[in-house]
């Protein structure tokens, strides 16, 4: 158990607010072991806490528990992300170095799409009249070139008050080296305006590159008042319902944090839902003993892929939120925060298919959404979507989609496919559908392949873990394309993020930019910095885990002098020794050679960024219901037969259909087959066998290569 719980029933509750649904997962102790119930209620955008309370009540009722049985609540939400996308955050001001008022606006100074002369750059969160330059200047080496003009800062107080600014970000050049001017600015403002919410760029993302750091600081400031209000309301409401147990927030980096930290750095809460999914996949990977995993999540508008090695998802500190042009990199707001690294593709069930000028099928990134939705939803949609294609190909059952909540019309799907793709390309019958699915699967396979290569990984060695409504439909074929031999579909995949929250450790990552040549680095300097970083991390983690043993993971990001891209190199535990230091260059060169196939022997190496993550132990095997031994294999009879399209066969093939809840543990079946369940269906390709393991997980194994 990651979070200590006191009540007898040891209830652990996770709540994930998504755009459409709020998911709840509740695990608790029973005589036979750990039990789990889940609930799904509609999100209530105006006051999200109402949906939360409704879902919690439903879960408690299902489990037959009361509020007093709950020992901990873990929460994740898309509220911050939505506020950024819809530009509905606080009226925010940005105080910055004189001469650099427009960094937020000019950004990368390049076009994210070269050939479209009509693009617009992302609108800054803070408009120019609210960006205030102040005389001050720090050098890249931390020397004060111009002292902070404190009177100028004081002079801003009446202006901020007059403009009814609710939140302030402070970002000065080179504050990642020395943040004294930023801190002094906060002190001055706080003295005059004690209730003002203030974000320092050096605290929220202390890394070199001014645009990205300032953007992160402003985004944090922009969502802070809203998030802090919401979190406070939620905490009060929970307490009023008798749920006065500890409340933790899920962060984008995959760790949990306290209410206090979440309120200070709400920007770290974006993408908490997908992070939960990745944590769940990590847990499944640990249980199954899969060392190299690609997690594959597919919903209505996008698909996400995440690489997991030895139960640890790939991490990154670069993220872009609120992209506004065809999902293109550069069309959103850059954030430098710890995130679980995922590649996101505009390929979901609602993604729209069309024929482009080169007579090619193009799919996404635009989506039909849920209104009007795919043509087969019968809500007036005329565009052909991936869901329409899946329906026509027999992958989806018309009467059982979304647990039977939406009855689908195959005739409308076929008409939309014919009009939008079949006729323009001269493809008859099911071939338009086959083409769309093939293209969308190819897009996902390409993304997975490139993502793996960029990290020096070989995708074919991975096990694929598929969850989310769409992934099990496509995972088998994707595995075929990527040469992957095993696909795993866990139970409860429809509320996977919430379940993932229950497996997350309490943790916090502290980052520092200290640009130094490896040859110039002294071991005492390194140890002093790392000790200071541990202290900072512990100050955040400790309140949530009093008395717990904490695990520390440290790394440095290194590069050849003159390069712009760094590679992370892990540091050994404890105080560094001179021999640790001596080994760093060799480790870097080995990692570089692994990734790029060469090294640059005479080139000196430098360190840019230092990172320390402190967390409670993950204890992945103990986080959920135990896996009983796999029962003896059995071969169940299909619950029906259906025509399913097979690319290799070039047509429809009679295919066995199974109903997942009816399959006994230990069942083994041969592809091609479809395993239906309420939220999705797993398509078993002809080249795979499927087995149900002791915990109900579906495991697809390739029969032959």
């Amino acid at each position, binding site marked *: 158990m990651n979070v200590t719980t006191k009540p007898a029933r040891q209830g652990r509750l996770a709540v994930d607010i998504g755009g459409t649904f709020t998911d709840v997962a509740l695990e608790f102790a029973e005589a036979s072991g750990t039990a789990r119930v889940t609930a799904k209620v509609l999100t209530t955008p105006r006051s999200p806490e109402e949906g939360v309370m409704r879902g919690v009540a439903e879960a408690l009722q299902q489990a037959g528990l009361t509020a007093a049985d709950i020992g901990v609540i873990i929460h994740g939400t898309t509220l911050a992300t939505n506020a950024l996308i819809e530009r509905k955050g606080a009226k925010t001001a940005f105080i910055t170095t004189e001469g650099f008022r427009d960094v937020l606006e000019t950004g990368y100074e390049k076009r994210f799409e070269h050939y479209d002369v009509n693009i617009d750059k992302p609108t800054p969160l803070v408009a120019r009249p609210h960006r205030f330059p102040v005389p001050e200047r720090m050098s890249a080496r931390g020397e004060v070139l111009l002292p902070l003009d404190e009177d100028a800062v004081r002079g801003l107080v009446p202006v901020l008050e007059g403009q009814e600014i609710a939140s302030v970000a402070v970002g000065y050049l080179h504050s990642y080296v020395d943040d004294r001017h930023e801190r002094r600015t906060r002190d001055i403002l706080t003295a005059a305006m004690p209730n003002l919410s203030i974000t320092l760029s050096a605290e929220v993302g202390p890394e070199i590159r001014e645009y990205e750091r300032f953007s992160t600081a402003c985004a944090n400031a922009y969502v802070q008042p809203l998030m802090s209000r919401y979190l406070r309301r939620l905490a009060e409401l929970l307490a009023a319902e008798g749920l006065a147990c500890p409340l933790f927030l899920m962060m984008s980096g995959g760790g949990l944090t306290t209410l206090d930290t979440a309120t200070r750095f709400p920007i770290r809460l974006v993408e908490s839902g997908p992070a939960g999914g990745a944590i769940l996949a990590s847990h499944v990977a640990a249980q199954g003993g899969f060392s190299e995993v690609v997690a594959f999540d597919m919903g209505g508008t996008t698909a996400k892929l995440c690489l997991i090695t030895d139960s640890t998802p790939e991490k990154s500190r670069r993220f872009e939120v609120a992209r506004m042009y065809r999902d293109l990199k550069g069309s959103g707001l850059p954030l430098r925060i710890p995130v679980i690294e995922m590649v996101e593709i505009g390929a979901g069930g609602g993604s729209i298919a069309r024929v482009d000028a080169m007579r090619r099928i193009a799919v996404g990134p635009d989506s039909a959404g849920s209104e009007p939705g795919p043509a087969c939803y019968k809500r007036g949609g005329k565009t052909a979507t991936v869901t329409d294609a899946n329906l026509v190909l027999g992958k989806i059952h018309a009467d059982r989609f979304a647990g039977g909540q939406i009855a689908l019309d195959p005739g409308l799907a076929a008409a939309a496919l014919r009009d939008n793709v079949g006729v323009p390309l001269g493809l008859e019958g099911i071939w338009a559908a086959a*083409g769309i699915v093939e293209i969308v699967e190819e897009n996902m396979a390409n993304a997975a392949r490139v993502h793996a290569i960029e990290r020096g990984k070989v995708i074919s060695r991975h096990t694929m873990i598929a969850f989310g409504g769409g992934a099990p439909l496509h995972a088998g074929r994707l595995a075929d394309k990527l040469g992957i031999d095993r696909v795993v579909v866990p139970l409860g995949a429809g509320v996977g993020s919430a379940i993932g929250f229950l497996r997350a450790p309490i943790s916090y990552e502290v980052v520092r930019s200290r640009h130094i040549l490896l040859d110039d680095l002294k071991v005492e300097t390194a140890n002093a910095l790392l000790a200071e970083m541990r202290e900072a991390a512990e100050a955040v983690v400790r309140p949530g885990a009093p008395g717990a043993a904490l695990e520390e993971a440290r790394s440095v990001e290194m590069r050849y002098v003159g390069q712009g891209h760094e590679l992370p190199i892990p540091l050994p535990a404890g105080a560094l020794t001179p021999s640790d230091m001596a080994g760093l260059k060799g480790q870097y060169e080995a990692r570089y050679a692994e990734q790029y196939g060469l090294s640059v022997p005479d080139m000196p190496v430098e360190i840019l960024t230092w990172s320390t993550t402190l967390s409670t132990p993950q204890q992945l095997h103990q986080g959920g219901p135990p896996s009983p031994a796999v029962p003896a294999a059995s071969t169940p009879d299909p619950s029906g037969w259906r025509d399913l399209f097979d690319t290799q066969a070039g047509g429809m093939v009679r295919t066995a259909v199974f109903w997942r809840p009816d399959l006994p543990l230990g069942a083994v079946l041969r592809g091609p087959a479809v395993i239906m369940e309420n939220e999705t269906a797993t398509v078993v390709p002809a080249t795979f066998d499927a087995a149900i393991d002791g915990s109900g997980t579906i495991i697809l194994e390739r029969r032959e290569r």
Partner: protein
Amino acid sequence: MTAADAKPNALAEIQRQVMWNRLIAVVEEQAQVLLRTAFGAVTREAGDLSAGVYDLQGRMLAQAVTGTPGHVNTMAMAAAHFLTRFPIETMQPGDVFATNDPWMGTGHLFDFVVLTPAFRNGRPVALFASTCHLIDVGGVGFSADATSVFEEGICVPHMKLMDGGHPNEVLFEILATNVRNPVEVRGDIMSLVACNEAGCIRLVEMMNEFALSNLDELGGYILENSRTAALAAVAKIDPGTYRHNMTLDGYEEPVTLMAAVTIGPDGAHVDYDGSSAMSRYGINSPICYSDAYTGFGLKCIIAPDVPNNAGSLAVFTTSAPEGTIVNPPRPAPVTARHVIGQMLPDLIFGCLHQALPDGVPAEGAGSIWVLAMAGDFDDRNAGFNVMSVSVGGVGARPHKDGLSSTAFPSGVGAIPVEVTEAACPLVFWRRELLPDSGGPGQFRGGLGQIVEIGNSEARDFTLSAATFDRLRFAARGRDGGAEGSLGSVALKSGPQFTTKSTHTIPAGDRVVLEIPGAGGFGAAVTRDPQRVAAEVAEGLVTRDAARDAYAVVLTAEGAVDALETDQLRASRSSG
């Protein structure tokens, strides 16, 4: 067609599309490897690179979107030049070829082009090429002051860089001896090798997966579909010849560029007859580079969605008399060739505006300002040699304001101030939008910026003004839109720099650069007064300009005085 035929045909069609997508993913990956391993800030931060795959005839099949247009289209020709010198049947696995010949590559010595044949089962199946901007190539450095390409640095003709997997150490040694940053130069060249290698591996995997023995059929399909799509796009424009011209500062004297765009059944052709003769200094644009930005300009307007390959690019052609500034013969100096080359899209827009009055933007700042700065450190023996980039405004669009401080047509972007300052003792004291620099119009031109740089140490430093144009000739508006602001280069203490040579900034002083603004679209007096008022509040437009240029009168509080504004606008239109 019988029912039995329909199946394999449909499947084959879908597979071809899948493979096309895959090929584009392969070159994108190639570019990403380069971006991550390159040493020069201009490559890694600003994206000055390109990558592509070619068939055995040297026809480009796909090109990475990552990169910059000047490389995109020049690269299309690069592979064919290698094949002339090294026929495909002479190439062996492990061979890698290189050149930085400006006339055979991408227009100046700084760009190295590396070409690697891909082999499958011992037989060549494709060629991968990539290019990026090296930190240094010897010679006079990044400057337009040379009077021949011989002074501009070392030129490597088409040569083997690797022979059967063994590095050509003779070539590497000659390079190392002739450049100021030998280790980085070798590192960058090896990055080019590595990224091509990544492309080769991925291509062979794809061919194995789809059991392809060659790319002939797939290549034919890609080129034909792209050509057809590009031709269909050209056919939407009224046939005819459209002429326009543009005058720029030049180096020793103003340069006039003249273009005639002919829209015909076979595509769009641009001829530069009548343009100024080549300069004595390094601002000449070799025809390959002129062709690249010509193709880019045409494609932006006519066929933006058609991928770049030999099929689509063949529809857009260029000619220019030899000896003009857009077609200088060897040994003309060419280092700052983009001063001319990057102005060509705006010139072409001027031609196309006659056919598409609602379809092209006004003129912008055009060529990027490359800030090549050098000096010494106090505490080190070595000097520093850094390159930053500043960009001005982009022309107003027919229905939108222009983008401020954004590169166009170059795909190169800014280098963060913090990154530049970490590498040298220079300090940027200002990098900010310049009020009133955007050309007034119903839609305003993009704003330029003001940049101020000094040295934190008590030493001089130098700045090459090679690429600073539009100090005398501004970006023009369209349809009554006014011109953008002129650029300027001056010492903080007062004196102006007016030439493209290399200037010294004395210790304690600073250089102040005003990067040009862009032209407006439509008459300024038709701009929505509320938008003018909003931009006055934002500090992007001054109150004086609101009255003088836009005929908008504001109250003391900054709101639009509707009555006064109407009267002023009425008097302007009657006057």
